[in-house]
């Protein structure tokens, strides 16, 4: 559907819109019901790395390799605000109430990686703040991904060296920093549960882990045979979807089947590998699950966004223990 490798796909809060960003500088918005494209947002001068919409689906934030964060009016595609940075922006996320936007910036050209927080004016025509309200500098290892915890209490960040940090969202003080993934392996994705009390991380060390936001304890671990680029949890059913595949630069040397370009479904509680969905012919870069748990979208290095709606077999699936419990 897109022209170049996808970097992130995301549903809005109601799940009717799907945003996709790719390395071709253009942001697309699609209707999740039928895959129809509603529009595109033009203005970025580099690969767009990340995207998020605010809870009321009025403002869209995007971060790109042209060292900017841009705010857009979702309805019309109008650019509202541009914030300039010295380095590329790799992750943006709105807080649960839409009052704040966090962003992580790259470590490059002598600049350290930072996590910044901007206050957001929910009025699309209103004035936006010029300066961030909080700036956290990552001295040891840059943050690749970051997310808000419940009630915007903490900011959780995943680092390039495989550690995960917990910051106080008010003061920016680092409360915890624990090594979670194999040392020196990049954390590629972090997605919060719907209630934002636990989250899943994916890493190049071929594992995905579910952690508690309060104490950063690993609760579940999913082991696969390929470097992972993305991990998502499905509401309604206790599954996780993992996506990955071989590095893009090695793809041409192997067959599609060996590349492991499949969405992997694991059971969230039992950690079992329960199935795969094929379709992409490149590694999966990003996965997003519909907030109602009825569909999921995946974006691949091959330039396609695939939107899958779940059918009855998916919702009917139960483990033996679940089935017996359901009967009683």
């Amino acid at each position, binding site marked *: *559907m897109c022209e170049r490798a996808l970097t992130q796909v995301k549903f809005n809060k*109601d799940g*009717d*819109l799907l945003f996709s960003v790719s390395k071709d500088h*253009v942001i697309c918005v*699609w*209707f999740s019901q*039928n*895959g*129809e*494209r*509603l*529009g*595109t*947002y*033009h203005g970025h001068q580099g690969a767009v790395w990340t995207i998020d919409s605010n809870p009321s*689906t009025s403002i869209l934030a995007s971060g790109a390799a042209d060292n900017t964060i841009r705010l857009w009016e979702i*309805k*019309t*595609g109008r650019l509202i605000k541009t914030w300039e940075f010295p380095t590329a922006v790799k992750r943006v996320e709105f807080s649960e109430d839409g009052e704040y936007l966090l962003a992580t910036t790259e470590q490059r050209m002598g600049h350290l990686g930072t996590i910044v927080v901007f206050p957001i004016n929910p009025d699309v025509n209103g004035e936006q703040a010029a300066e961030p309200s909080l700036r956290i500098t990552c001295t040891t290892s840059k943050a690749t991904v970051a997310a808000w915890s419940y009630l915007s209490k903490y900011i959780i960040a995943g680092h390039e060296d495989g550690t995960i940090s917990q910051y106080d969202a008010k003061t920016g003080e680092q409360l915890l920093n624990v090594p979670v993934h194999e040392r020196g392996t990049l954390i590629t994705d972090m997605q919060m549960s719907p209630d934002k009390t636990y989250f899943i991380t994916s890493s190049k060390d071929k594992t995905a882990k579910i952690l508690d936001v309060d104490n950063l304890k690993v609760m579940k671990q999913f082991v696969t045979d390929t470097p992972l680029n993305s991990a998502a949890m499905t509401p309604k059913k206790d*599954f996780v979807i993992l996506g990955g595949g071989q590095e893009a630069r090695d793809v041409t040397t192997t067959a599609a089947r060996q590349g492991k370009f499949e969405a992997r*479904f694991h*059971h969230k509680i*039992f950690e*079992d*590998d*329960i*199935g*795969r*969905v*094929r*379709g992409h012919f490149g590694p999966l870069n990003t996965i997003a699950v519909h907030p109602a748990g009825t569909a999921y979208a995946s974006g691949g290095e091959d330039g396609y966004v*695939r939107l*899958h709606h*779940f*059918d009855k*077999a*998916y919702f009917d*699936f139960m*483990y033996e223990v679940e089935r017996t419990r359901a009967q009683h």
Partner: protein
Amino acid sequence: MASTRREWAEDDEFDDPNALPANEIISNPDGTKTMITYRLADNGKKIKTTRKIKISVVKERVNPRVAERREWPKFGREKGHPPGPDLTTTTIGENIVFKPNPQWRQKEKDEEATGSVKAQLKDKKVSCRICQGDHFTARCPFKDTLAPVGEAPPDDSRPGSPDLAAAPGGSYVPPHLRNKGKDAGAGSSFSSGRERDDLATLRVTNLSEFAEEQDLRDMFERFGRVTRVFLAKDRETGRAKGFAFVSYQDRMDAQRACEKMDGFGYGHLILKVEFAKRSQ
């Protein structure tokens, strides 16, 4: 034309041969509607399309915000495009059956195990039973002169055949190997008969495709007793392919027939007759 006065009989309909009748919509008593539309095809023909439509109302409750967003006009690159998915950007993927199953991996492993037998055989080297070379025994250049390694050279002139015929019951023995060894010396009626046949068989070519087997038999019976006439026919059309074989009981008769019939005009063509070459 427009200024000239029209006759009352010249109705509009007849005026223009390309005029299309008006579209019709008929409401049927069972609640369906029949739509009849007319259009002109590329070759100038009128095409009448009759469609029967049943309208059923499906009520769906949606979030008002979602419903409002559905009405949003398109923007950016999609600006001005009509509602509905655009085929240039959106394609419907194939239906993927996804059945969660914790044992799926085990199943796949079983399948892989059966597949590995094939892989094992793939790696196995082909070796000739006669000369140990890396080709099949049947392709061995020495197969007519040498016996397979580790076997006594058979008395029979054809190596390999007796042991095949002597294979334990149950395994398939091709027809040409059956009864081998039992009456090889006694002269199997089949093979020796075949030899005799070849000696007195003529090949007739340049036949017309309307040639008949009976005509050929009549022509060639003048020279002696004909045991067999075979006219090659096309399997689909049933017509002659242009060649035939005629077998005589006596080789001398065949010799005479060959001399007389070569160059004989049959139908509109000149026949060519020669002794059939022995089949390999």
